[in-house]
């Protein structure tokens, strides 16, 4: 049942993208705009997210919003994720696009339903991204970087901050308008 919900949610986002296809302009302030849906895996969870990418010359800025699948669906705890990604074309032969990527991710969830006990997770990552296709693009991205977790501990009566190394693998599709 939970997988069916996930399937429909994914379908919902695809529909939104398709709807946008007929109404959005192809250029925004002299930039190319594309929308993406992606699935990312890191040491915490799988994340499903929607992104908007604005490309100007060789630089691409992408902002996105998603959620942790295991936490949100299987553990019934809403776990939103926000990200910003900056990428630069390293090699582009019109069909395969190789980019260097730097990204920042923020996600959080409340561990206790009855009171506010929020854990915040940040990731600062760098790696590469491969895009294949022209208007409809398939992309794969691999990154490594730093990971932090912060939360308030009642036991120690202070905010705790943990730092660790992390990794991330992401794949998805995007459509350029």
């Amino acid at each position, binding site marked *: 049942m939970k997988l069916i919900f996930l399937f429909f949610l994914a379908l919902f986002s695809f529909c939104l993208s398709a709807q946008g296809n007929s109404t959005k302009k192809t250029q925004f302030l002299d930039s190319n705009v594309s929308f993406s849906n992606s699935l990312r895996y890191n*040491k915490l969870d799988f994340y499903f997210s929607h992104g908007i990418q604005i490309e100007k010359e060789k630089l691409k800025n992408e902002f996105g919003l998603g959620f942790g699948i295991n936490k949100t669906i299987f553990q019934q705890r809403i776990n939103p994720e926000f990200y910003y990604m900056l990428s630069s074309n390293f090699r582009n032969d019109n069909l395969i696009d190789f980019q260097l990527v730097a990204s920042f991710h923020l996600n959080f969830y409340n*561990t206790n339903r009855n009171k506010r006990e929020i854990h915040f997770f940040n990731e600062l990552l760098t790696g590469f991204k491969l895009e294949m296709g022209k208007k409809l693009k398939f992309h794969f991205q691999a990154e490594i970087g730093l990971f932090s977790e912060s939360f308030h501990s009642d036991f120690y009566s202070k905010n705790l901050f943990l730092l660790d190394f992390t990794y991330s693998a992401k794949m998805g599709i995007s459509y350029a308008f």
Partner: protein
Amino acid sequence: MRFRIIFLLFVIFSCSKKEKYEAIQLFGHAGNGLNISNSVYHDNSENSIKLALAQNGCDGVEVDVQLSKDGIAWLFHDQNLEKETNLNSCINSLSDEEIESLSYNHFNDEKLIKLKDLQLKGKSVVLDLRHSNSCENKVVDVNQMIVEIELFRQKNSESEIYLNTNYLAWLTPLQSLNLKLCYSPSENENLDEIVNTYGVKCFLFKNQEITKERVETEKNKGNEIIIFEVRSPKGIRSALNKYPTIILSDDVKAAIVEKF
């Protein structure tokens, strides 16, 4: 419109109320979890224990206790040190000075810690007492273990201390400490006989080795049941639904999310 309704249902579903598990205590297994790939700290290390205790909703930790050649209690899980420290030896065969020079094979380069250095500040602990020196094929001196536990108790007088062993011969001497004494039974061992002979009222089981009905039966007899090898959210849910006394979780945060 249909998809928006489905999305709303999804959100509402995410907020549905869970069963009540207030009576079940959550402990971190070997600190903040044993053999967890995404763990920031090594199991049984000071930081790992502190992190588990720091998390709101975690009631305590389980740690593994072994005696050095000098008779001091150290926290370490495996029988042999090789996998975790690159030294092919056992805690029981090394002096304190030699153990102090060791570090875990972990990017944080953490040191092994002594039991007496563990500060619980009122939270509970399960001390898993290791009786065997596998390098020398000997049984560890239980009287020295009792001395070390007594020292630890004096420093953590506000904490509830559970002692666990899987060695029947240690049950009688350990009773002199007057702490909660637990036993890890092997398969098909008769618990009633152990209760009657040794007065033990607490038992440890792997999650997959005990059913909800068995937990209920044992609790009705007045026994406390501790479940371990609880790792994934699915495993945690399965353990919670058996309503044991304590769950030793390898993923403390996931266990807190499932409980609350």
